[in-house]
């Protein structure tokens, strides 16, 4: 009974999980996919009982039939031998991906999370699934029509939030750059140049926001942290000003907890980090769920046993059923 951890070598979140599992005596096989094919060998064979075989490094190995669960946490990509031609690299990369992914995907084990399930959880689809699961979400728009943005804002009668659909970190001009959530004032709607260059994501601005919440769901367990921002930048996007944040454990309303669990079941996810705005009337409005969200800084700040819960899940959890969409 082994837990496989797929993560980069430098990943403190994975380090903490591996240490917790190891301290409990749970066998762990950790590797980064960059190890394949040069430092990780795969010998998988299909027979009457399905796939079996061995993943091995110079330091340890695991039989596929001994794998109980897989923790997938931002591994890197295959590192192929130097000297390959472009065609050879394309071929080798595709073969490695289909072979490794195909074999591991076929195992009857719990994934936290399966990368294909994570890929399904695109923000626009999240909003629809959340709505079906009884969670309130902001009115939202995906468009490349500047006039459409103005119409959306006019109909809502409130300011807009401009967000990215695909993560916020960029690199440009040799620097890291963050595209934080931005509040769009009505006066800014006169100049929407660039909206037509690609699709853009706008949401109603939640003006009555009292605080925000990062709720980390591990299996059925919910660890919710209120995030209070004490600066203007932090109130718009708490990622923009960590020094101005304070945290507190908070209990979500029952329907929100049920909604988060249904949301994860729908996507076939076993873990998710949900972001909410909470109004002064205690209405919880879900912004998004990150299937591989960070939790270590909240675990430390509030002494939340999230790593322990994740270790429990990986040790005792069972494979999730195929995702289905609620009616």
């Amino acid at each position, binding site marked *: 009974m082994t837990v496989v951890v797929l993560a*980069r*070598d*430098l990943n*403190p*979140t994975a*380090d*903490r999980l*591996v*240490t917790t599992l*190891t301290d409990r005596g749970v066998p762990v096989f*950790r590797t980064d996919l*960059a190890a394949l094919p040069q430092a990780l060998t795969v010998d998988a064979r299909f027979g009457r009982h399905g796939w079996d075989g061995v993943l091995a*490094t*110079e*330091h340890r190995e695991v039989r596929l039939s001994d794998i109980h669960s897989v923790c997938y946490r*931002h*591994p*890197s*990509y295959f*590192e192929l031998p130097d000297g390959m031609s*472009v065609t050879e*690299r*394309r071929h080798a*990369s595709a073969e490695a991906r*289909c072979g490794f*992914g*195909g074999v591991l995907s076929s195992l009857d084990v719990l994934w936290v999370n399966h*990368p*294909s399930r994570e890929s399904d959880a695109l923000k626009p689809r999240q909003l629809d699934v959340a709505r079906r699961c009884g969670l309130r979400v902001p009115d939202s728009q995906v468009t490349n029509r500047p006039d459409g943005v103005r119409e959306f804002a006019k109909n809502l009668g409130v300011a807009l939030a*401009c967000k990215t659909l*695909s*993560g*916020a*970190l*960029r*690199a*440009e*001009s*040799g*620097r*890291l*750059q*963050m*595209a*934080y959530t*931005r509040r769009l004032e009505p006066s800014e709607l006169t100049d929407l140049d*660039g*909206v037509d*260059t*690609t699709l*853009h*994501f706008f949401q109603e601005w939640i003006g009555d926001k009292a605080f925000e919440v*990062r709720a980390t769901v591990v299996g059925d367990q919910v660890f919710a942290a209120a995030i209070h921002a004490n600066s203007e930048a932090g109130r718009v*996007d708490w*990622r923009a000003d960590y020094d101005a944040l304070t945290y507190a454990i908070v209990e979500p309303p029952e329907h929100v907890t049920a909604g988060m669990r249904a949301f994860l079941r729908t996507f076939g996810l076993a873990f998710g980090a949900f972001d909410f705005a909470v109004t002064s009337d205690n209405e919880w409005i879900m912004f998004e769920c*990150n299937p591989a*969200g*960070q939790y*270590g800084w909240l*675990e430390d700040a509030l002494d939340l046993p999230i790593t322990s819960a994740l270790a429990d899940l990986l040790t005792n959890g069972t494979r999730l059923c195929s995702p289905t969409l609620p009616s």
Partner: protein
Amino acid sequence: MLEGDQMSEDGTPLWRDPLFSPGDRFPLGPPRGIMADCQDGPSGPATRPFSLRHLVAGARLDEVPELRWTYCHERQIAMVYDEDGSLTPYLGAHTKPGATPGDTSGYIGGPDGSGPGPEEVGDPDYQED
């Protein structure tokens, strides 16, 4: 070309190649180093996406604080070198969501321990937030 950064002939990373999309069967993380060569600046108002206005600039890609570390195969965790050369687990540092530019806590250093790997801070498609 950086280690692990497999490029097509036109310079497009293979993981972005539509013919070899990692997302079609088993999405995997992008190769290391994908952000290290992003030296281009904004294109101009006619082609600049609206959502990239007001980016908040952070650390230079070549000036991320150095961290000397190695991977302990016995414990299967990263270890950092102290000033006296001893090794301690790198368990304390955690990436904060959206990794504020310049705040590289949690992901510092390249895969070989030789220097910073800014792509480790996070990346646009597999953002840990």
